[in-house]
Structures are given as C-alpha cells and as structure tokens.
C-alpha cells in the first residue's frame, strides 16, 4: 500500500488547474486505522486547510476472496460464508443467496418458510439501521444514541439466538426454505419487540431529529441527487433519500413481499439529513411489515423438496434483494456440477462507496466522516 503513495498517485488525482504540492495543500490519510472509517477503509484526502479538494478510497484491506471460495465449495457449504460479507445484515445476505440458488434449482420455498424469512429479514433491517444510526451519531459526536440503539438491537439478536442459535452470523436460512421451525413463543417475542422498540425510535428522534447541532451538521451535507444516484448505481436508502421511489421489495417482489402493506419513504434533497429521516422511516415501515408477517405465518412445511446433492442444470441466474444497505445481488453460474462455476456478488456498500468523492468534494473534513457514516458501508462487504 505504501508504494501507491510514491508512484505519482497524487498527481493523477489533482485537477488540471491545481498543481500538486501547492503550498496550501495537505495530504491526509484517513484510515485504515481510524475511528470513523467504519472498518479498514483508507481515504486519502487532499485538503486546503479544512476544505476537501479531493478524495481517493483505497479498499481491499479486508479482502478474503469470498467469491473465489465459492468456486471450491458446494452450494450448501457456501451458505455460511455469505453471512460474513455484510456481517451486520447477515440474514439478508443469506436470503439473497438462498433465493439465487433456489432459482437456479427451480424450486421455491414454501409459504411458511417465506413468512419466517420475511420476519427475520425485516428484523435484520431494523438491526442494521439501528447499528447505522448509533455509529453515524457517534461519528457526528453524539455518543449516547449508540448505546441506546445497541441496547434495542440486542433484543433482535436475542430472537436470532433463540431461533437459529447464533446472534450475528446467523446462517438462518437454507436453500429451499428454513432449517429451523419457529421456537415456542417466537410470535410473542417478536410482538413484544415491536411494542418495545416503537417508543424507542421516538427517543432516538428526540435526541437527534430536531437538535440544532444535528440538523446543522447534516442538512445540505453530502448531497447526492436522485439522478446522481442512478448514474452511480447507488441504491437503497441513499437512492430513496434522493427522491427516487425505488425499492426492490415493491419493484420486483420476492419472498412474498407483495402480500404486505408498507410504504417506501423518500426524501427530497438527498442530503445526509434526508438519508437519516428515510432510514428512521424505514425502521417504522419494517416494524409494520414484521407486525403483519408474524401474526399471519401460515402452517405448513418449512422446507421445499431439495435434492440431497445439489446439481443445478447448466445456466446462470441473477437474483437481487433489497438489503438494508441497497440492492444486494447474487450472480450464480452453474456448470452442472455440485459446485458453482462462479459466484459474483453485487454488494450495495461497494457500489455506494463510489459516490463518496462526489459527495465530499468542497466540504469540510468533518463532513467526510458524516458522509462515510451516512453511506452505511460495511467493509466486509466492500472488500469481500
């Protein structure tokens, strides 16, 4: 990594009218060991005093070759690995992968399994957004929301632990349905959680939404309009904050999402504050979906008929779902053997991170951390 700093890299990033090493410019390394880059992201900042003239992201510090690992594992064996990409939304990752392989195998999860999947994925969306809110607020300097959101997220993790035995990297779903039947009191637990967390979201808002410091720090910061989002391929809450009503749960419903009644919250300006509002609203919508889903889980089997040894026909599929951070897509190619020929993941964080430079150019150093926070990246997913 140190080589890139000496190989004329900075000259390339400098604009034509700015000569590098002009007296006022300061090159600052933010990361990989930095408290607010949300992992091992390295952002090289060119600064004029406090003003950002340009950024360059260096990624790959957490590269584990997940896509390559997939080529040496059977379809079933690869399932736990996808949890480790976006580890704060492991359940969503698992859902995407299972849906992709199910499409490849031409099977479909039974309705009961689909409902359980919806409940758990929406709980996961809550958990992911809560973690985002806590860390984002911490980036902006409010330390307390982090502890409140973690406390409330803990209830979700407890439900996961009771349901599938793990809290973070859950490995909750299997190809063709779910392995685990709901435990006794699952519905009760989820309903209690919904009741418990609804006022807590109001509390987060009391701490932040109207707070003048928070509003000043987020309004008009890191603006990314809907058109820019589409140009960059940015998805998820960032896109919706730009005013584009696009949610894969509505646009191409999967896993029985068309059965539920919910809204797609959108913003207007596409700034950090709008993204905050959109995600808060999404938490409330998630609670709505959970409420509908958990009280109408149909009876029936939880596992479709899946061959013991999976040998999908030669072919390829692309399946994408609306993960908490945006469109999470799996492109799986089968050569007819038990192992995938190629698995390519379209991680939302990786694509969203591209927009960083556009969002922070001309802003201040403090805005960089606010924007990194608001993009809600997980480096495990960016680097895979």
């Amino acid at each position, binding site marked *: *990594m140190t080589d890139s*700093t000496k190989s004329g890299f900075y000259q390339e990033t400098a604009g034509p009218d700015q000569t590098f090493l002009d*007296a006022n410019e300061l*090159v600052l390394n933010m*990361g*990989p060991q930095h408290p607010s880059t949300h992992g091992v992201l*390295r952002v090289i900042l060119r600064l004029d*005093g*406090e003003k950002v003239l340009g950024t360059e992201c260096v990624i790959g510090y957490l590269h584990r070759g997940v896509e390559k690992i997939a080529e040496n594992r059977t379809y079933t064996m690869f399932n736990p690995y996808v949890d480790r990409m976006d580890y704060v939304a492991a359940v969503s990752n698992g859902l995407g992968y299972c849906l992709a392989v199910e499409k490849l195998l031409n099977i479909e999860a039974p309705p009961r399994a689909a409902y359980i999947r919806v409940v758990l994925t929406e709980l996961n969306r809550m958990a992911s957004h809560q973690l985002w809110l806590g860390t984002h607020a911490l980036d902006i300097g409010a330390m307390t929301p982090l502890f409140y959101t973690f406390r409330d997220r803990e209830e979700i993790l407890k439900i996961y632990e009771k349901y599938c035995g793990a809290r973070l990297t859950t490995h909750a779903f299997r190809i063709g349905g779910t392995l685990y039947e709901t435990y006794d009191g699952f519905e009760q637990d989820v309903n209690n959680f919904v009741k418990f967390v609804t006022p807590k979201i109001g509390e987060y808002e009391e701490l932040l939404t109207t707070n003048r410091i928070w509003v000043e720090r987020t309004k008009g910061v890191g603006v990314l309009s809907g058109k820019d989002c589409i140009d960059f391929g940015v998805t998820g809450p960032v896109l919706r904050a730009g005013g584009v009503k696009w949610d894969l749960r509505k646009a191409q419903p999967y896993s029985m999402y068309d059965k539920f009644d919910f809204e797609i919250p959108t913003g207007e300006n596409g700034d950090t504050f709008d993204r905050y509002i959109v995600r808060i609203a999404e938490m409330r919508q998630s609670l709505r979906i959970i409420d509908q889903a958990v009280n109408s889980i149909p009876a029936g089997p939880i596992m479709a008929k899946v061959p013991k040894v999976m040998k999908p026909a030669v072919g390829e599929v692309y399946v994408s779902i609306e993960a908490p951070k945006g469109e999470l897509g799996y492109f799986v190619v089968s050569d007819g053997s038990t192992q995938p020929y190629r698995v390519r993941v379209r991680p939302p964080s990786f694509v969203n991170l591209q927009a960083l430079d556009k969002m922070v150019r001309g802003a201040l150093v403090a805005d960089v951390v606010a924007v990194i926070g608001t993009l809600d990246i997980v480096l495990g997913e960016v680097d895979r």
Partner: protein
Amino acid sequence: MPQNYVPIFLFVAVVAIAIPATLMIGKLVRPNNPEKAKLMPYECGIDPVDNARGRYTVRFYIVAILFVVFDVETIFLFPWAVQYRALGLFGLVEMLVFLAILIVGYVWIWKKGALEWV
C-alpha cells in the same frame, strides 16, 4: 499592592518543581523499548506521506488578526467598566463611539467574508 503578586512566582516555582519531578519519577518506573515503527508519527497505520510542517491555509491567520483587534477592544473596555460610575454619561457616550467604530469594522469583515470558512 506588590506583595499580592509575589505568590505567582511562588506558584510557578512549585509547579516547575512538581511537574518535572513527576515526569522524572515516571522515567524511573516505566519501560523504554523504542522501536522504529513505534516512533513513527501516527498516520492511521500508513507511512507518513510528507512532513507535517508545511504551510497551512491562510484562514487561520485571518482569525488570529481579527482576534488581536477585538481582544484589544475588550481590554480597552475593562478600565471603562471599572470606572463606569465615576465616568457616568460622558464615559458611556465615549464608549459607544469607540464601539461604533469597531462595529463598523466588524460589519465590514462580515460583509467581506472573512468570517466564512468554506
């Protein structure tokens, strides 16, 4: 009264003995294993790109100059504040004239954008 000021020097003497003494005591008990990587300036785990003692943006110097102007203004206000009753209406008007001159300057720098940062 001059003797009121003597304790300042007493105090400086106490601190000048106590703090370095603490540092010395620390030197006796703490380990010392310097190593190249340890002694490198912190740059988020990357080798530093260049020296940190370059020139820096000029805005900070503007703030410094403004500070000098306005802090001197405040200092001039102190004697007036102490003798405020004695000077009466005359002193107040004089002070208003003094402040008016400064406020004109303040409005000018505001309009000029010296207080903006981006």
